[in-house]
């Protein structure tokens, strides 16, 4: 190629494209963060739950409470079951914390109640056979103990998290599509503003491809820069929000495991870096189509 042919300055379409690209880049970044967050959230929900189980040990009939010895025996049976990494009976204080939302913090009240004991079981992995073996072992050693394998929670959470994921991806797709359309519009507006230039180039013997390349290059750069600014803004704001959230509300701490973490993992950063590149590609394509279309329409 010889030297690139300059285009006349056209502030309207320049600023329009820059602004639209940065707004769309910003939205797309949010979409990416939410998608990755939802993905991670769903994973952590299900794997957290799947790898754990709770064994409920009620007091045997005619007995006020489960004795520490009885409890230790059940824990022992659970721990010996293949596939179980560990088991631990919840202490009195932990039990109190669990029921405090309903009964208040008065330990005296809790101490008087015939509460069942809870054993927190951690399994080595997500293996359905472990659950069956546990059930088997418990029915022999402690028929009263009841296994809550969290399976029904997982079954309910899976579709919910899948929906969150789908929503995020749909939003992302829509942002991409809207961006492509807006860039195409900005490009054809830019082209109309410079139709005199296009006409002269055609008369001089420029191929459609040549004219298309001049405009496409311009919009590719504008959109790359614009969406880059949008992504950078989004990242800055998200970082700000995260620091804010951690410093203030102490309540955040208790729900923290359930919130998507915004750790700047390589995956998240990589996806965010892809946003401007993807936008530039979309812009290239949209500009090319819009230029070719305008050129054809112009000369019947």
């Amino acid at each position, binding site marked *: 190629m*010889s030297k690139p042919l300059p285009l006349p300055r056209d502030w309207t379409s320049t600023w329009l494209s820059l602004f639209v690209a940065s707004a769309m880049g910003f939205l797309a970044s949010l979409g990416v963060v939410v998608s990755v967050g939802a993905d991670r959230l769903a994973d952590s929900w299900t794997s957290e739950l799947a790898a754990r189980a709770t064994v409920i040990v009620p007091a045997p009939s005619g007995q006020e409470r489960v004795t520490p010895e009885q409890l230790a025996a059940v824990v022992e049976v659970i721990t010996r079951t293949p596939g179980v990494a560990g088991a631990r009976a919840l202490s009195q204080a932990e039990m109190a914390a669990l029921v405090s939302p309903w009964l208040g913090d008065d330990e005296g009240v809790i101490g008087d109640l015939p509460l069942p004991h809870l054993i927190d079981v951690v399994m080595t992995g997500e293996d359905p056979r472990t659950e069956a073996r546990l059930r088997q072992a418990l029915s022999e050693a402690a028929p009263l103990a009841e296994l809550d394998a969290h399976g029904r929670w997982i079954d309910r959470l899976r579709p919910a998290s899948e929906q969150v994921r789908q929503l995020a991806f749909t939003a992302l797709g829509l942002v991409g599509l809207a961006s492509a359309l807006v860039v195409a519009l900005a490009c054809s507006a830019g082209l109309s503003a410079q139709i005199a230039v296009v006409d*002269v180039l055609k008369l*001089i*013997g420029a191929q459609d491809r040549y004219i298309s390349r001049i405009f496409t290059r311009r919009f590719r750069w504008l959109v790359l820069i614009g969406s880059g600014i949008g992504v950078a803004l989004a990242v800055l704001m998200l970082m700000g929000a995260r620091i804010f959230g951690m410093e203030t509300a102490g309540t955040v701490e208790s729900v923290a495991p359930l919130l998507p973490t915004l750790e700047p993992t390589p995956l998240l950063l990589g996806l965010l870096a892809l946003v401007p590149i993807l936008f530039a590609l979309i812009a290239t394509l949209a500009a090319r189509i819009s230029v070719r279309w305008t050129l054809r329409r112009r000369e019947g």
Partner: protein
Amino acid sequence: MIQFSGTGLRYRQGTQALRGVNLDIEAGSLHFLTGPSGAGKSTFLRLLYFALRPTSGKLTIFGEDTNKISRVEIARLRRRIGVVFQDFQLLDHMTVFDNVALPLIVAGRREHEYRANVLEMLEWVKLSHKVDAKPPFLSGGEKQRVGIARAMVSVPDLILADEPTGSVDPEMGERIMALFREMHRLGNTVIIATHDLEMVRRSGAPVLRIEDGTVARYGPGGRASLPPPPGAIAEGATR
């Protein structure tokens, strides 16, 4: 090189600008195109640089049927044609130098290849001192000369000029005519639309005269086939 056979052109608004034109223009010839204002001179030239397609009959240029030619082919052929437009068609955001170089830029040539050519053309039309000026700051005559330099810088096979001396003084007009003759001498085909009959008579070149939408050839300059009575050729006298 150019064959009209029963060629007609009717604008969408309804004006039948040309009808039943039968004409054969040989490669390497120089013709003047005359006729009163509104006769169809510009229309005739537009057909030749593919800005219009015949609405009836057939037109062949460089052996290509203009009714069947593709967009890509049109762009390719246009590079073999230099056009001096009646309304100049310059790019206001580019310098005089780049405007003149445009056909070469578009053809993918590099500046070091064409720089000398462009400067030489600008010298011919006495615009060496305006190399870096932009068209909005030029007079009508200067713009016309930029257009002429651009049309000839690539030494195209076919040169079409629409009233190329319309905005310049007689002395510059002579210089420009010398340039056309030089292109003709180099073997290129030249068609110059003008209503400057004095210039036509002096040159002695054959004349294509448009009247009532058809084209007749007179010449080459011989008194036997010319003159149509001066009054009939004179601008607007027939209407």
